[in-house]
């Protein structure tokens, strides 16, 4: 009989191995799903994981990995700091929207003037937009003890209404024949977040994501604040004795995650998306939660997880048009990834035992 036995110490080896195991399990069960749909599972898995990286048109898809992964990584890094300290910002999607609205709004306010200072101002506005939006659940939590999960999540829907409102009113393109949506920032040089080197997919948002990874790494390993974050997550009582101010920590974690999400939105709207539209947000803020956990809340892990997630999106699209797989099957495949990660995660804290109960097992 199989039994679970609690480990004295969480297994370090399994902490690193579980994401790999989860990916392998996803491939196996995803393959079964594809086979059940009448497709060759090996071809489907190859199309999703191999073709974007090494297939015939990889020169186009590799840069796209950065474009798709950049915002996911940037948002997930911000979220991971709070998650480590047990502060749950679920509303990154809303902060992403606010960052885009504020960033684009500042840019459009200067239209059609050209100037080097416009883009930096947009970056600041984007970060502030996200930060302020995240401060609402933050301040409500520290002042009135509200639940930041609920408040930040509900504010996503408020942000979506705000997005619809500015797309139809305040930021609507006056030359858009009455259709909703702002001017296209790709056609406004001073506000355009163009590729830094053409054809690489590398825009300022991707650069910001890489910088965020490095900063988060240093913060968590070298800085006292990072220590406080980890301590609060692992032993909240000990943290209080060590003089960590919960109020400051809540505001810092929500603020930084909001600013990161806001930046991601701003870089997206001024670059790949180009326009503020009613449907501008496509779920990066929510997917980033998955990315953060898939990456074990570790900066380097998140970097890899973000790229992996981007790979499944891009490979999934190729599989749809190339193999005729339905979109729902691809979404299920992505869902499996998170499911298996959480399922396999149990091995970090527990060990599998075969046969009858040992004394140690009974004690546990």
């Amino acid at each position, binding site marked *: 009989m199989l039994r679970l036995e609690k480990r004295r110490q969480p297994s370090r080896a399994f902490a690193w191995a579980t994401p790999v195991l989860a990916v392998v399990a996803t491939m196996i069960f995803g393959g079964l799903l594809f086979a059940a749909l009448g497709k060759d599972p090996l071809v489907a898995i190859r199309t999703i994981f191999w073709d974007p990286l090494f297939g015939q*048109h990889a*020169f*186009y*898809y590799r840069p*796209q990995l950065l*474009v*798709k992964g950049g915002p996911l990584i940037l948002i997930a890094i911000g979220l991971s700091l709070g998650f480590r300290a047990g502060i749950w910002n679920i509303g990154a999607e809303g902060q992403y929207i606010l960052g885009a609205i504020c960033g684009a709004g500042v840019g459009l306010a200067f239209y059609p003037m050209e100037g080097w200072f416009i883009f930096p101002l947009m970056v600041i506005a984007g970060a502030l937009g996200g930060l302020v939006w995240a401060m609402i659940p933050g301040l409500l939590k520290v002042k009135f003890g509200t639940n930041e999960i609920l408040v930040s999540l509900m504010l996503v829907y408020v942000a*979506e*209404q705000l997005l*619809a*409102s500015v797309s*139809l*009113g305040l930021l609507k393109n006056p030359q858009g*024949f*009455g*259709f*909703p*949506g702002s001017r*296209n920032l*790709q056609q406004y040089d001073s506000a355009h977040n163009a590729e830094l080197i053409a*054809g690489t997919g590398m825009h300022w948002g991707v650069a910001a994501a890489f910088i965020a990874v490095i900063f988060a790494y240093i913060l968590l390993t070298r800085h006292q604040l990072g220590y406080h974050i980890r301590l609060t997550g692992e032993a909240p009582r000990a943290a209080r004795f060590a003089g960590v101010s919960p109020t400051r920590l809540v505001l810092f974690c929500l603020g930084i995650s909001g600013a990161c999400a806001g930046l991601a939105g701003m870089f*997206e709207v001024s670059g*790949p*998306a*180009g*326009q503020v*539209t*009613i*449907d*501008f947000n*496509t*779920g990066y803020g929510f997917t980033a939660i998955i990315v953060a956990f898939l990456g074990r809340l570790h900066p380097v892990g998140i970097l890899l997880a973000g790229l992996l997630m981007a790979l499944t*999106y*891009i490979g999934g*699209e*190729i599989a*749809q*048009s*190339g193999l*005729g797989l*339905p*979109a*729902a099957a691809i979404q299920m495949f992505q869902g499996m990834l998170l499911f298996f990660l959480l399922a396999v995660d149990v091995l970090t804290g527990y060990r599998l035992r075969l046969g009858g109960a040992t004394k140690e097992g009974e004690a546990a």
Partner: protein
Amino acid sequence: MKLTKRALMTGAAMALGLAATGPALAQDKTKVGFVYVGPVGDGGWTYEHDKGRQAVEEHFGDKVETVFVESVPEGPDSERVMTQMALDGADLIFTTSFGYMDPTINVAKKFPDVKFEHATGYKTADNVSVYSARFYEGRAVQGTIAGHMTESNVIGYIGSYPIPEVIRGINSAYIHAKKVNPDVQFKIVWAFTWFDPAKEADAAKVLIEQGADVILQHTDSTAPQAAAQEAGNVITFGQASDMAEYGPKPRVSSIIDNWAPYYIARTQAVMDGTWTSTNTWDGIGPGMVGIGEISDAVPAEVKAEALALKDALASGEYHAFTGPLKKQDGSDWLAEGETADDGTLAGMNFYVEGIEGDIPQ
């Protein structure tokens, strides 16, 4: 290192060029791609586009290969999907949502030899056509039936987004409902989605609670039909697709988008090498807009009147926007006998006189 990098980039650029020119020479099958905003099973908008795709396959058989990607978000994701189709050798790509407009133009620039067709937009290029249907003609027929059928004189309308296409539909339905029933009143709810069964059902329930006994929808799912069925004594109209499974009541008729003839004609044009950039806006006459079977729940004389209106719209002897008409603010729009020009209709951003409420800004 630098050299290798440059060599790689050149290689990439060459591959891009090859991919762009290759397909016409390399294969005899014409490859047609479709980008969908919803799932093919939405029972409405995307479902009908996919029926058009299937019709292309049926019509041309082995001479054509079609591919599609469903539920593609508007924005950079759609740009990638289109690029991917073009790279994979598509000769013709239909992008079937308004929000794909700028992405379509962007991708079309990179692939001058691939033809693009964008639904419901207004930006064209040498290799980009736009096409749409005069759904408002169908709304005129709906409005006539709705005006006769309502007993509470309250007609509910589920709007998707306040864009000209949707506003045209509201105006057209209102004008024709009012014509047959001067006491009629419209209640409009904006769902801000094209497809979200839960939101659409909520919108329908709210309207029914406010006394509406007719629900018109400009969203794509069948959820409002189900909500009306549950409430009883409420009638609805199928949107984009026939939604006949909800007939004979609540669904009493429908507007059907029939893209098949257009898709077949455009594919043929690519095969013949006669494709040119065009701007198509067809209505009931050419068959792009169909009126679904009017069920027995509608009295015979109302049905006859609706069908007569449909025929007049089809032949062109009657225009759905014929004066005298005033705007909501009371200012004159069309004089007696005057008809609306396509430019005004294309950018319509006002209600006609009598509709209450504001267009969300």
